[in-house]
């Protein structure tokens, strides 16, 4: 059959025609229609004059039709080019007359060729086929389930196989044998859950000799939550999942909180939600289940395309990728003109756009986070066709209504949807309310913490004051009976205010200021070594007199390689000491509010500081006297400037990468004696200490007010929620009474809030310490808040039923357009949705689709050889309620899925078998080298995520926590969760994953695996590879080296070693002096074995 798909072939030949044209066209040399004429017509004429669109009743896609002509008569007169309409049209002077109407005119060589051909009698092969009507294209025909062929090959297990086997028979192919069971098990594990079986799982499977063993394994895998994660990643490729790119508020290409959509995908797959229902929810959950917070997450599909700068880009992406993903249609090709290959008109593109024209996305509050979701916000926006696709040139004469392409038989009914109050006023929903309460509860918790911390600070300040009264000369004293600091490093009676062993980086304790802080192997790591100061700052303040102990290693950096401990931290201001590996010294530095650093000469001491060596840095401060010790040795005694202010502790790096083991900060014991003298003559002590007590008390008071305000806020919210629920008919109650209470609670909360603010202003004023700028600012705030407080108090006097709404209100109706579209897509009459979905699933089981062009089932995809199988599967898929799990099971329990990928069967074949198989194999290789008919399984590289996750899984370290906001992309080596949970956008991807060809976020209908040396380095040297091989080597049994090697092969490669492999590995182990190290090295080698990243 000669379809329009062949047009491309003609275009392909065009290049060679141009080469020919470089020479002369000689009237006496016969012109070849197929080689010289048809390519010109295909390139310049077919788009309007072919089966697709028969402008003027004329078709030029076969010589017989060309001769027949169109409405204006014959196109050519044989032998007489001068009288031929075709030549007249292509040579017309008037551009309005000339053909083709778009683009450059034909070249003089092309015209000469046409003339010569006509003059020579316009000969063409008699058997030239006439292309069929594109509307009859196979993929546009309604799905009818074909009958299952009869096939008898011995490997046939189910109906899928009967289709494949009949193809084998037709093409003279002979399938290879089934894969060995161990290999099959690994294949199906990686396929269904993206993780290989462990050795125990392998053994259990091999011991289970029941014929149902494999099916049982499949059932277990499909029931595993890991299945949803694995296949979610596949669908995230197809549906273009992306976290937002850009920075700060300049978010692009997606939205924050889009991860909820990822969680919805995982959960839906695990629950085996029907594919049809999934499409309905992704396109229109706001219309199908308008107040179901869980379902609404699905509309992240629409939010992903959100584009801040241009609504057209946003809608273009939705139209293009909804069409490609759900329908396998390149509708986007019809944006600027009629589709060049498929029977889709330009206006049909815009009619598809009209379904989405009215929608927008919004963030519904979920307390501290949001639900990003779609809704119809612009119900009256018209859709216009853009002339030649130019958005500056809309055709306003005619507004287009939503409609699906005619070729797909698109009738559909659109009905507006009245939304429930809980949808257009989402704060009425219990889930939203609970989330809001959780946020307030967090504030209450913080307030309680603040109360605890501030009361400690008051105690500490009082103690300092008391000490100064009882022993006013201590700080200058040199009393040798007092224990020196160095001798008292390990003993301390004081309760620490900060004690952290950095087994995690606790955001409740620390604020992170830049850099890349991660936790691994008990170390806190900062691995950005550029010349910027990166700090961790404690949430808690330290006592005025304190001792801090930090154990650390400097691991690298660019020049200075400095790591420090700061105190009195407030904004940029801090006093600090640091170790510099670049400068080989310990140095005290004083940083001012502008971030400028001073380096007092008396605060430095030269000592060699080595990389990767443990150091214990200790700082003790009493009033203005500061001692610095390293590894218990006093190095610097220094007098701080007189104006010390209370502040926090910081741990920081500057052009250094470093690891931190622990930190402890406690009040300095009264009896510890510091070395050195505070040099200033100003005895800052008593007044300063008194002032410090007052400040501490003020802060304690603020903490209490903060708690009261948060609690009142909670009461207010709860009362208003109750009232609104009654008002909107969701609950019953006395609306009037409730409103009175709600109003009152809200006004009380306002008073509490301003009380807190006034207290804060007062403290700020007292701390302005004569700075006129700060004093003026503080006074201004104070005056404003005092007035607001007075107003709020005044409002308490009267009764009222007025109160603030719980949150924003949105339109009460939705157009129903997207729901209608989604129902049409998933309707039984749609020829494409099920075919496209089945093709995606098939691709990921066989690494080869049934229809090659995943996103284009149009005329450029000629009828595939496996159409019957595709259609049979598609109908069955729909009949089984679009259950993906049932489809997976059908496929992976088929015989064809179980075929070996090699004729060699894991090296077990005898010489004789080998040559016999080899012969059959060679014959198949000759007939079907690309394995188009699946006479064996395809070998493939595991996807990036599977490579990383498998290593963690086999090492016993995979953290299977599910869901949640994306993990920072550069923590892939230290956070041991599945790869799907890491941030991935155009600008930020985990380097390990991108080295292994992870998904491209803009378009990824199919992955493209490569082999590159950077992958080798990642597998050989990464921290994950090192830690997991260490862990695994220690965990595997191994009284003898043979036993260990066998166990290792079984665990990592899911098979026994061959004799030669065993020999090599045992020799390797016995050559090594350090047995446990040798085993770890061998484990690392096996993770790097080709078979580890390969699925056979």
């Amino acid at each position, binding site marked *: 059959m000669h379809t329009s798909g062949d047009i491309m072939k003609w275009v392909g030949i065009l290049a060679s025609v141009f080469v020919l044209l470089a020479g002369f066209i000689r009237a006496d040399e016969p012109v070849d229609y197929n080689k010289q004429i048809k390519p010109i017509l295909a390139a310049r004429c077919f788009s309007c004059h072919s089966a697709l669109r028969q402008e003027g009743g004329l078709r030029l896609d076969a010589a017989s039709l060309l001769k027949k002509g169109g409405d204006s008569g014959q196109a050519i007169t044989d032998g007489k080019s001068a009288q031929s309409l075709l030549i007249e049209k292509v040579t017309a002077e008037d551009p309005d007359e000339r053909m083709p109407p778009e683009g450059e005119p034909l070249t003089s060589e092309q015209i000469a060729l046409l003339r010569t051909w006509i003059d020579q009698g316009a000969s063409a092969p008699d058997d030239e086929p006439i292309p069929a009507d594109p509307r009859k294209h196979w993929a546009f025909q309604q799905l009818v389930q074909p009958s299952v062929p009869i096939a008898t090959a011995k490997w046939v297990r189910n109906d899928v196989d009967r289709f494949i086997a009949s193809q084998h028979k037709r093409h003279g192919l002979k399938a290879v044998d089934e894969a060995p069971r161990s290999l099959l098990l690994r294949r199906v594990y990686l396929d269904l859950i993206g993780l290989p079986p462990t050795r125990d799982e392998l053994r259990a499977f091999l011991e289970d000799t029941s014929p149902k063993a494999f099916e049982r394994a499949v059932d277990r895998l499909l029931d595993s939550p890991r299945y949803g994660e694995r296949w979610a990643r596949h669908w995230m490729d197809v549906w273009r999942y992306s976290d937002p790119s850009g920075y700060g508020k300049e978010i692009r290409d997606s939205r924050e909180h889009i991860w909820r959509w990822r969680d919805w995908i995982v959960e839906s797959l695990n629950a085996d939600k029907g594919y049809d229902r999934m499409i309905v929810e992704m396109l229109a959950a706001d219309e199908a289940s308008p107040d179901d917070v869980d379902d609404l997450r699905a509309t992240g599909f629409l939010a992903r395309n959100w584009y801040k700068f241009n609504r057209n880009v946003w809608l273009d992406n939705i139209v293009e990728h909804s069409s490609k993903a759900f329908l396998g249609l390149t509708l986007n090709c019809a944006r600027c003109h009629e589709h060049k290959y498929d029977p889709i008109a330009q206006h049909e593109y815009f009619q598809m756009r009209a379904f989405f024209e009215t929608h927008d996305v919004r963030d519904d509050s979920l307390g501290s986070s949001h639900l990003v979701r779609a809704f119809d916000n612009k119900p009256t926006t018209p859709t216009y066709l853009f002339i030649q696709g130019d958005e500056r040139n809309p055709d306003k004469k005619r507004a287009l209504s939503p409609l699906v392409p005619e070729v797909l038989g698109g009738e559909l009914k659109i009905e507006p949807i009245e939304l429930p109050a809980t949808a257009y006023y989402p704060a009425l929903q219990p889930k939203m309310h609970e989330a809001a309460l959780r946020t307030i509860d967090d504030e209450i918790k913080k307030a309680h913490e603040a109360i605890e911390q501030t009361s400690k600070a008051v105690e500490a300040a009082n103690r300092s004051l008391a000490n100064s009264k009882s022993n006013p000369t201590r700080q200058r004293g040199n009393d040798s009976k007092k224990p020196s600091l160095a001798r008292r490093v390990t003993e301390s009676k004081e309760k620490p205010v900060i004690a952290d062993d950095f087994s995690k980086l606790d955001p409740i304790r620390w604020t992170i200021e830049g850099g890349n802080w991660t936790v691994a192997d008990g170390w806190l790591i900062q691995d950005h070594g550029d010349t910027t100061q990166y700090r961790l700052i404690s949430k808690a303040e330290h006592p005025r007199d304190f001792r801090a102990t930090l154990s650390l290693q400097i691991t690298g950096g660019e020049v200075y390689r400095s790591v420090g401990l700061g105190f009195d931290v407030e904004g940029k201001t801090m006093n600090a000491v640091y170790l510099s590996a670049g400068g080989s010294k310990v140095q005290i530095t004083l940083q001012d509010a502008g971030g400028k650093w001073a380096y007092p000469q008396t605060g430095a001491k030269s000592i060699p500081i080595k990389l990767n060596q443990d150091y214990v840095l200790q700082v003790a401060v009493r009033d203005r006297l500061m001692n610095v010790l390293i590894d218990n040795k006093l190095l610097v005694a220094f007098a701080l400037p007189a104006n010390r202010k209370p502040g926090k502790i910081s741990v920081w790096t500057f052009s250094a990468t470093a690891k931190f083991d622990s930190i402890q900060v406690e009040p300095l014991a009264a009896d510890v004696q510091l070395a050195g003298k505070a040099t200033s003559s100003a005895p800052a002590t008593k007044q300063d200490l008194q002032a410090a007590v007052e400040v501490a008390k003020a802060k304690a008071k603020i903490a209490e007010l903060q708690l009261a305000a948060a609690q009142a806020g909670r009461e207010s919210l709860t009362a208003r929620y109750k009232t609104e629920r009654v008002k909107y008919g969701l609950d019953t109650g006395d609306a009037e009474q409730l409103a009175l209470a709600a109003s009152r609670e809200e006004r009380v909360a306002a008073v509490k809030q301003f009380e807190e603010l006034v207290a804060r202003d007062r403290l700020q004023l007292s701390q302005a310490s004569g700075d006129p700028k700060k004093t003026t600012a503080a006074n201004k705030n104070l005056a404003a808040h005092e007035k607001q407080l007075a107003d709020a108090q005044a409002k308490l006097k009267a009764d009222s039923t007025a109160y603030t709404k719980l949150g924003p209100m949105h339109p009460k109706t939705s157009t129903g357009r997207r729901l209608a579209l989604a129902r049409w897509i998933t309707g039984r009459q749609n020829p494409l949705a099920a075919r496209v979905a089945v093709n995606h699933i098939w691709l990921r089981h066989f690494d080869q689709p049934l229809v090659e062009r995943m996103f284009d089932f149009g005329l450029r995809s000629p009828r595939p050889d496996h159409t019957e199988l595709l259609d049979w599967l598609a109908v069955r898929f729909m009949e089984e309620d679009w259950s993906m799990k049932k489809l997976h099971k059908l496929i992976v329990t088929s015989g064809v899925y179980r075929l070996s990928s090699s004729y060699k069967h894991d090296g077990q074949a005898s010489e004789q078998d080998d040559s016999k198989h080899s012969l059959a194999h060679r014959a198949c290789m000759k007939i079907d080298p690309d394995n188009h008919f699946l006479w064996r399984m395809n070998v493939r590289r595991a996807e990036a995520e599977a490579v990383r996750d498998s290593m963690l899984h086999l090492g016993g370290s995979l953290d299977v926590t599910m869901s949640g906001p994306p993990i920072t992309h550069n923590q892939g080596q230290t956070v041991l969760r599945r790869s799907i949970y890491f941030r991935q956008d155009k600008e930020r991807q985990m380097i390990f994953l991108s080295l292994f060809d992870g998904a491209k976020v803009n378009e990824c209908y199919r992955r493209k695996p490569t082999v590159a040396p950077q992958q080798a380095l*990642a597998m050989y*040297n990464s921290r994950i590879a090192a830690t997991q091989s260490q862990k695994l080597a220690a965990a595997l049994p191994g009284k003898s080296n043979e036993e260990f090697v066998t166990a290792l092969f079984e665990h990592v490669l899911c098979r026994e070693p061959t004799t030669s492999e065993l020999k090599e590995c045992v020799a390797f182990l016995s050559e090594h002096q350090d047995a446990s190290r040798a085993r770890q090295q061998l484990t690392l080698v096996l993770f790097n074995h080709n078979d580890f990243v390969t699925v056979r």
Partner: protein
Amino acid sequence: MSTNRRTFLSDLGTGFASVALASMLQRDGFAAENDSWSPPDGKPHFAPKAKSVIWLFMAGGVSQTETFDPKPALNKYGGKTIAETPLPNPLESPLIKNRIELVKGDANGKIYDKLYPMQVGYEPRGQSGIEVSDWWPHLSECIDDMAVIRSMWTTASNHDAQLQFHTGRNRFDGFFPTIGSWVHYGLGSLNDSLPQFIVMGNKIGDCCGGKATEGADYLGPQHDGVTMSVDPRNPLPFAIPATASSAEERARSQELLLRLNGLAAEQYPDDPSLTARIKSYELAFRMQTAVPEVVDLKGETSATHQLYGTDGGATQSFGRLCLTARRLVERGVRFVQIYHGGGGAGAWDAHSNVKGNHSGNCAKVDKPIAGLLKDLKQRGLLDETLVVWGSEFGRTPGLQGSNGRGHHNFGFSVWMAGGGIKGGIVHGATDEIGFHAVENRHYVTDIHATVMHQLGLDPRQLEVPGRKRLEVDYGKPISEILA
């Protein structure tokens, strides 16, 4: 992976890249439709003038008027608005049409119309007498080897112009292959132990393109720039084992690995990806030795260290990058991309205190860059190494705040040296105040085209089927500056 039936990996030299790409295109149905298409074979399309490129990028926007494009009119009319001078209003020039693409509400979009005098003096330098500002005392000595292009323009007015400088496309158009990745894609390797497209220095911030400024986009990740640090302890991602081990121990386990994979290859002779993987490991292991060696500067003479300023002071950090760049091109690396001051908006983004900012930044890079040019020259490498210096855009002739200059994309300077570029010439010009490029105007892709041309590459022959390029993407080589 599907078997590529035509050829498989004839040689390591052209890399797996092209093979992988060929098979991937074939699977996408492109190759089937375009039988005449094949991936680049690694050979130049015509005789090249240069072998390697060192691409020096100053992030943040370097003021043209304080570096390579003196404007006495600014001193004359300093403090006046343009309306108060006899000069034409540059905002009314036809050149401004369609050239402003501003992010709404972006403070950087304002045009500052009170003229601000040059903050530094100029002197004619070298034989050629080209004027260079006083903040480039060392580089001035090389002016006779440099071609200064004073007539650049671009469209982005914010720092996503950093991405645009590397891909030729505005950020709003999306992401595209960068110049380095095109070179990597087009040309074969000169060294089988080193990556061929290396990126060093303070990286471009996520705001401004991030990784995409060194990415290959649709050419495939194997053509992405490979980030290298000059820290000998960890110069490449994953180049250094996470746990220490002796060279001997590594050699033993690597040998075992190659043997085990060799055994697998016997078992699966029909698996081409296995062969490719074995070779990729061999290259990786060579890289693992070669890369730390190349960043180890201990063997360089003290004269060399003095030349680059790696012996201490403000020049040390950038000097190490420049010296390493020379060592890389010496060993046959094709494209070395070095950023100065990347991260956030970029170090040169002098909205205030342009004098302090630029004099400070120049002091950091002047000597290292001059050292690089001189060193390449004395080693006979300058002829075959093309050095390009640039920034995403220039800075306004007008004053921002009390002593700064804003972003300016209508006219700015770039220079090139070596690799068959004519030395000691100035090409193109801006108007009297340095606002618009008016003579021999060049969009950023003309720089790309010039680089490709000197390497013997025709960008049109590197087309990838299915990836439409615009005319402007190709650029035109700046023939006037070619020797």
